[in-house]
C-alpha cells in the first residue's frame, strides 16, 4: 500500500499536468514573454505544491491561476515594474471607426500581441473569459474579485482591445 503522501503527490501532479497548457497561456499573457512565462508557471507550481494540503479540491483551474497571478503580481510589485502597455483612452475607444470592419487577415496573428498591451486587470479578464472560455464564476475565483467586476473588466477589456486593433490596422496602412 502506498504511503498517504504518495497519493497526494500523484493527485497534485495529475491536476497540474492537466492545467499546464492553460497556466502557460495565462502566464504568457501576464508576462508577455515565453521564458518568463515558463519561470512563472514553475514558481507557481511550487507555491501550489506547498498549499496542496489546504486545497479543498473545488475549481482546481481557478485555484492554480489564482496562485499564478498572485505570484506574478507580487513579483511585479517587488520589481516596481509595471506590465508593458500603452496608455489607452476609453473615450477614444468609443470613437465610431473602431467598430467598422477590420481586415482580419492582417490582424489575425496580432490579436494576442494587442491583448498583451492591455492593462493587467483587463488582459487577465479577457484572457480567462474569452481565450480560455472560463465561466465568470471561475474567473472571479481566479482573480479574487466579484463576478460583476470580472464581467465589467471583460466588457471594457474588449473595448480597449478593439481600439488597439483598429490602431494596429491604421498603423499598418499608413
Amino acid at each position: 500500500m502506498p504511503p498517504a503522501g504518495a497519493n497526494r503527490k500523484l493527485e497534485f501532479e495529475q491536476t497540474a499536468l492537466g492545467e499546464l497548457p492553460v497556466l502557460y497561456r495565462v502566464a504568457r499573457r501576464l508576462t508577455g514573454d515565453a521564458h518568463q512565462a515558463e519561470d512563472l508557471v514553475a514558481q507557481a507550481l511550487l507555491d501550489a505544491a506547498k498549499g496542496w494540503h489546504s486545497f479543498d479540491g473545488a475549481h482546481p483551474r481557478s485555484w492554480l491561476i489564482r496562485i499564478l497571478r498572485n505570484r506574478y503580481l507580487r513579483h511585479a510589485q517587488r520589481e516596481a515594474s509595471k506590465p508593458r502597455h500603452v496608455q489607452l483612452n476609453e473615450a477614444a475607444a468609443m470613437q465610431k471607426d473602431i467598430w467598422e470592419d477590420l481586415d482580419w487577415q492582417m490582424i489575425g496573428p496580432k490579436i494576442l500581441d494587442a491583448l498583451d498591451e492591455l492593462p493587467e486587470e483587463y488582459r487577465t479578464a479577457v484572457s480567462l473569459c474569452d481565450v480560455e472560455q472560463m465561466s465568470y464564476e471561475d474567473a472571479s475565483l481566479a482573480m479574487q474579485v466579484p463576478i460583476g467586476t470580472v464581467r465589467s473588466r471583460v466588457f471594457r477589456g474588449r473595448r480597449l482591445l478593439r481600439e488597439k486593433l483598429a490602431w494596429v490596422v491604421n498603423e499598418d496602412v499608413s
Partner: protein
Amino acid sequence: MFHNKNRTGPPCKHMEKLLNKTAEGSARGIARWYALAHAARCGPCRRFLNALIEMIARLRASKNEGLPDETAQRLKSSAAAAAANIPFDD
C-alpha cells in the same frame, strides 16, 4: 428601439452590455431576441455586435495553438519537481 440602419457612430450606450452578452453567447431568450432585433435595425449596434462576435471567435481560436514540445516537456518536469516537494506526512 432604434430604426436607423444607416446611422453611424458608437453603439447605443444602453445596449452595450446586452450586445456583449449576445456576442459571447450568454444572453438567452427574450434578452437575446431583443439584442438581435435592435442590432438588425441599428447600424452602429449591428457593426458593434458583428465586430465583437468576430473578435471573440478569434480569441477563442487562439487557445487551440498548442504548446511547443520543448516547453511542454520543461513544464511537465516543473510539475514533477513541485510534486516532489509535497511532504509524505499528512
